[in-house]
C-alpha cells in the first residue's frame, strides 16, 4: 500500500487550501454581485415595465354595454325600446350533477334535445364558473314556473337582459329598421373597443343610419382576475354613457293610417312637411315584423320572408323605382312655361292620339276618343296625354332632363336612411352611355307622360311635390331633424338649401290646374273634394307596366295582376298654404284617381286635422 507512505506537507496543504478558499470567496462574491445586478435590473430599471405587466396580468377590463337610445315618433310615442328578457342560465361549477339537472329542467320546460346539445357544446368551451344560457326569451309563465322550483336547482338561475323591441312591428320596419347580432363582416368595421360589450348593431333603417348616436359609449369595469380568469373583485368602474334618444319626424298615427289604407296592396306612401322636409309618413307595404331579427330569426322564417312574392323586405318607399306616369305632368307643364315653349292659355287639339311627322306610329291618349281642344289647365285636370306628347316634343329631352333634375329626379334625396335608390332621369347622354344607343324622338314623347325610361321612387316624388308646393324651395327629406346628446342639448341636422328660380305666375298656373284635378268637375281625382274645408292640389297617375300593342286595347280585367298599371298620386295641401306633400304608389293598383288618391287624401285629412288641433291649442 504505497499510498500510505506519501509524505503530507501539512503546512503547504493548509496554505494552498486557504488560497483556494479565498479564490472561492472571490468567486462567490462576484456571482452574488451578478445576482444583485440582475435584481437591480429587474426591480429598479424594469420595475415600471413589470409592474404594468403584473397589472395587466390580473386586471381585466370587463366592458359594460351602454343602453341603446330609444327612438320616438314626433309625438313621443316609443318606436324602439329596450325591454328586459329573461334567460335561464346554468353555472356548471355550482351544479353537482349536471346531467340530472338538465333532465329535470327538460321535464319542466320540454326543452328540445338540440338545445341541450347546444348547451353542452357551449359548456365545453366555457370556464366552469361562467354562466351559460340554456333557454332564452322566457315568457312570464315560464319565468314564474321556474321561480317556484328555483330553490331545488342550485346553480341554475334566471337572468334579465335588455333586448331591443319594436312595439309597432311591421308598421315601422322600413323606417326604424332593426338591430341584429353583430356578424363577422361588421366586426371588422366596427370600433373594437366601443363594441366590446355590445352584441347587437343596427342593420337597416334608422337603427343603422344613426348607429353611432344610438349606441352610446361602452363603460368598463376593471376586474381583478386570477390566472384562470375568474373574477376576484371589482377594482374600478367607468359607467357607460347611454346612447342618444332619437325623435323621428314620423307620426306613427298617420303612418298607421297610411299603412292601413294600403292594406291588401303592395305600395308605398310618403308624406313630407313642405316647409321643413320632415318626413311624416313613410309607409311601404307589406312590411315585416322586425322583432324576430333581434334575437336571431330562424332560417325558415327568413326564407319565407325572402321568397314571398310580395317582397315584404323590400323598402318600396326608398328603393322602389316606378314610372311616374301622369304625376310628372305638372312638372313638364311648368317646364313648358318656364322655357317659354308654351303659354298656359294656348290650346291644342287632342284627337285621342299623337303622331310624329312622317311616322305611322300612333301615341295613344288614355281616352281613345280624345279630349278635343285643351289648354294647360284642362290638360292637367283631365290628364290629356296628347297635350304632353306635343309639349315634350317641343321641349326636347335635354330641357326636360335639365328641369326635372332641379326637382331632384334622378338623384338621391339624401334622406337619412341607408340604401336609397336614385331612380332614373333619362337624357341623350345617359342613353349613349348606358345603352350605347341614340335618343329617339318618340322616347321624348313618352317621357312627357312619365313613361319610358323615367323612373322615380315614391320618396323622390313626394320630395319633388314638396319642392313644387314650396314654389321652388328644395327641401331635403329627414326622418331625424334633431337628437339629444347626453347633456340634453339639441343637435339639429344641416340641410341643403336650394331655391329653383321660377316665375311665380307660372307656378300659380300649375297650382290652379292641380287644384282643378281634385276640385274641378272633370278632375281625375274629383271624388277627394267631398267633405273637406280646404283645397288639395294634386295629380293622378296611372303608369303602364306592360306595353299594349298598337292595334290592341288595354283591358284591365284580362291582365295578370302583375301586369296591371301602377296607380299613383301626388298632392299637397292646403293648396294655398301648403303644409304637407304626399306621394302614393300602389303597385298594379289600376287607376291613380280611384286607388292612390284616396290613400293620400286620408293622410292629408288626418294631418291637417291634427295640425289644426295643435294650432288651436297654441
Amino acid at each position, binding site marked *: 500500500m504505497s*499510498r*500510505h507512505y*506519501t*509524505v*503530507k*506537507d501539512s503546512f503547504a*496543504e493548509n496554505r*494552498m*487550501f*486557504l488560497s*483556494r*478558499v479565498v479564490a*472561492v*470567496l472571490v468567486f*462567490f462574491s462576484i*456571482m*452574488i454581485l*451578478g*445576482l*444583485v445586478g*440582475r*435584481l*437591480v435590473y*429587474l*426591480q*429598479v430599471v*424594469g*420595475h415600471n*415595465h*413589470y*409592474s404594468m*405587466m*403584473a*397589472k395587466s*396580468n*390580473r386586471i381585466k377590463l370587463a366592458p359594460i354595454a351602454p343602453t341603446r337610445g330609444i327612438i320616438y315618433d314626433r309625438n313621443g310615442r316609443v318606436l324602439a325600446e329596450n325591454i328586459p328578457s329573461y334567460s335561464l342560465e346554468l353555472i356548471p361549477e355550482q351544479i353537482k350533477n349536471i346531467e340530472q339537472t338538465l333532465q329535470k329542467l327538460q321535464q319542466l320546460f320540454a326543452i328540445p334535445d338540440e338545445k341541450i346539445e347546444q348547451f353542452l357544446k357551449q359548456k365545453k368551451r366555457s370556464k366552469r364558473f361562467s354562466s351559460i344560457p340554456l333557454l332564452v326569451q322566457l315568457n312570464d309563465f315560464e319565468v314564474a314556473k321556474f321561480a317556484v322550483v328555483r330553490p331545488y336547482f342550485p346553480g341554475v338561475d334566471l337572468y334579465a337582459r335588455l333586448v331591443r323591441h319594436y312595439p309597432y312591428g311591421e308598421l315601422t320596419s322600413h323606417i326604424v329598421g332593426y338591430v341584429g347580432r353583430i356578424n363577422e363582416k361588421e366586426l371588422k368595421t366596427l370600433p373594437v373597443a366601443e363594441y366590446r360589450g355590445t352584441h347587437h348593431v343596427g342593420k337597416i333603417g334608422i337603427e343603422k343610419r344613426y348607429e353611432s348616436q344610438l349606441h352610446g359609449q361602452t363603460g368598463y369595469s376593471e376586474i*381583478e*382576475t*386570477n*390566472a*384562470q380568469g375568474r373574477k*376576484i373583485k371589482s377594482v374600478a368602474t367607468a359607467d357607460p354613457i347611454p346612447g342618444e334618444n332619437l325623435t323621428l319626424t314620423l307620426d306613427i298615427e298617420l303612418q298607421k293610417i297610411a299603412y292601413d289604407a294600403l292594406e291588401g296592396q303592395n305600395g308605398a306612401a310618403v308624406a313630407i312637411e313642405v316647409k321643413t322636409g320632415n318626413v311624416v309618413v313613410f309607409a311601404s307595404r307589406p312590411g315585416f315584423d322586425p322583432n324576430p331579427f333581434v334575437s336571431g330569426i330562424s332560417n325558415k322564417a327568413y326564407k319565407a320572408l325572402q321568397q314571398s312574392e310580395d317582397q315584404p323586405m323590400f323598402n318600396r318607399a326608398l328603393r322602389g323605382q316606378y314610372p311616374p306616369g301622369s304625376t310628372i305632368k305638372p312638372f313638364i307643364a311648368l317646364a313648358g312655361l318656364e322655357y317659354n315653349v308654351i303659354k298656359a292659355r294656348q290650346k291644342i287639339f287632342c284627337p285621342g292620339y299623337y303622331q310624329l311627322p312622317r311616322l305611322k306610329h300612333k301615341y295613344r291618349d288614355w281616352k281613345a276618343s280624345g279630349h278635343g281642344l285643351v289648354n294647360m289647365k284642362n290638360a292637367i285636370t283631365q290628364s290629356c296625354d296628347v297635350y304632353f306628347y306635343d309639349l315634350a316634343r317641343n321641349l326636347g329631352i335635354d330641357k326636360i332632363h335639365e328641369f326635372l333634375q332641379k326637382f331632384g329626379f334622378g338623384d338621391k334625396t339624401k334622406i337619412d336612411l341607408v340604401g336609397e335608390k336614385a331612380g332614373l332621369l333619362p337624357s341623350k347622354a345617359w342613353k349613349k352611355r348606358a345603352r350605347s344607343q341614340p335618343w329617339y324622338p318618340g322616347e321624348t314623347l313618352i317621357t312627357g307622360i312619365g313613361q319610358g325610361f323615367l323612373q322615380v321612387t315614391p320618396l323622390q316624388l313626394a320630395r319633388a311635390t314638396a319642392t313644387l308646393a314650396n314654389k321652388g324651395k328644395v327641401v331635403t327629406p329627414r326622418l331625424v331633424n334633431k337628437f339629444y346628446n347626453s347633456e340634453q342639448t339639441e343637435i339639429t341636422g344641416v340641410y341643403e338649401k336650394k331655391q329653383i328660380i321660377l316665375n311665380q305666375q307660372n307656378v300659380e298656373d300649375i297650382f290652379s290646374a292641380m287644384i282643378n284635378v281634385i276640385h274641378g268637375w272633370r278632375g281625375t281625382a274629383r271624388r277627394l273634394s267631398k267633405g273637406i274645408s280646404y283645397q288639395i292640389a294634386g295629380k293622378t297617375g296611372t303608369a303602364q307596366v306592360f306595353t299594349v300593342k298598337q292595334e290592341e286595347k288595354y283591358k284591365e280585367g284580362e291582365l295578370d295582376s302583375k301586369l296591371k298599371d301602377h296607380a299613383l298620386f301626388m298632392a299637397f295641401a292646403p293648396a294655398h298654404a301648403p303644409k304637407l306633400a304626399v306621394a302614393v304608389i300602389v303597385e298594379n293598383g289600376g287607376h291613380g284617381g280611384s286607388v292612390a288618391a284616396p290613400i293620400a287624401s286620408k293622410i292629408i285629412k288626418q294631418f291637417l286635422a291634427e295640425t289644426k288641433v295643435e294650432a288651436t291649442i297654441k
Partner: protein
Amino acid sequence: MKTETRDEQFYQPSVIGTILRTLHVDIPLFIGLFLISISSFVILYSAGGEDISILIRQATRVAFAFVLMIILAHVNPRQFQRYSSTFYIIGVMLLIAVLLFGYIGKGAQRWLDLGFFRFQPSEMIKITTPMMIAKFLSEYALPPKPKQFFIAALLIIIPTFLIAKQPDLGTSILVASSGAAVLFFAGLSWMFMLIIAGVLGLLTPVLWHFMHDYQKGRVITFLNPESDPLGKGYHIIQSKISIGSGGVHGKGWLGSTQAKLDFLPESSTDFIFAVFAEEFGLLGCLGLLLLYFLVIIRCLYIAVQAQDSYSRLLAGSLTFSFFVYVFVNIGMVIGILPVVGVPLPLISYGGTSMVTLLASFGILMSIHTHRKLLPT
C-alpha cells in the same frame, strides 16, 4: 502579547463555550440557519395561500431536519471519514435500484418506495459523493496527481450519470459540482482545470445530444423565454414579472398578486424567491442574499479552521454545494439560468432537500466542534 491572549482563551474556555462544545452546535451558523428558516415561514405563509397547515407541515420538517443536524454534529468527523466509502457505495447502489424499481413521479424516476416512506437516494448522494472524494484525496499528498484526479473524476461521474438518467438535471449538476469542489479545494492546478473546462466545453454538443427533450426545451426556453410565452417560457416570464413588479420596496408581506392569483407557478417551491422578491422588493432580496452570504462565510471559516484534509475538503465542498444551490435557484428564478428544478435552500416548501442540507450543516458543525483544542 497577542499570541498569549489567544492561547489563554484556548486554555481557559468560557462556561458557555464549554456548554456549546458539549452540544456540538456552532452558534453563528445556527443563528444564520434559524433566521433563514424564519424567513421561510414568513414567505411560505404568503406563497402557500395563507394556509397555516402548510406552515405546520414545513415546521415539522424543519424541526426534524434540525434534530438530524444536531445529531450529526455529535458524530465525530473521523466516523464520517471511516464510513465515507460505505455510504458512497450504498448511495450508488440505491441510485441503480431507483432506475430499476423506482417510483415515477412528475415524469421522472427519483423515489424509492420503502413502504413507509418515499426515499430519494439522489439527495443522500449529494453528501456521500463529496465525502467519498474527500476521503479518497485526503489519503494522498495534495494537490492530487493526474491519476488520482481521474479516479476521483470517475467517482463523480458515476452518480452524476445515474441521476441525470432519472432524469434529474438539477441534482446531477449539484452532485457533480460538489465533487468537483473537492478537487478544487484539494488544489487541482488552475491549468489543469482550464483544460478540463475546455474539454467539457467541447463536449457540450455531445451532452446536448444525450439530453432529454424536456431538458433541451428548458435550455431553449431559457435562451429565449418569450418564444413560447404560454408554454415553456411561462415560468420565467411570470417569475420576472413578479420580481420586477416588486420594485425596491416590494408590495409588502401577503401583497404578491402574481402568486395569490396563480399567475406564478410553483410559487411555494422552486419559484418562492420570486414571491419573496415581489413582496419584499430589492431591499428584502439584498437582506436574504446577505444572510446566505454570512452563512457561507461562516462555513468557509469552519473549513479553514478544520484540522485535517478530509474535514477541510468536505467542509469546503459542502459549502460550495450550498452556494451552488442558492445561486442556481435564484439564477433560474431571475432568468439568468435555465429552469432546472432546484429548490431555494431552506426556504422552498418541501422536505427532502431540507433534510440533506441540514445534514450537511450538521457535518460542518461536527467538523467545527470536534477540533482538538490545540494552539496552531
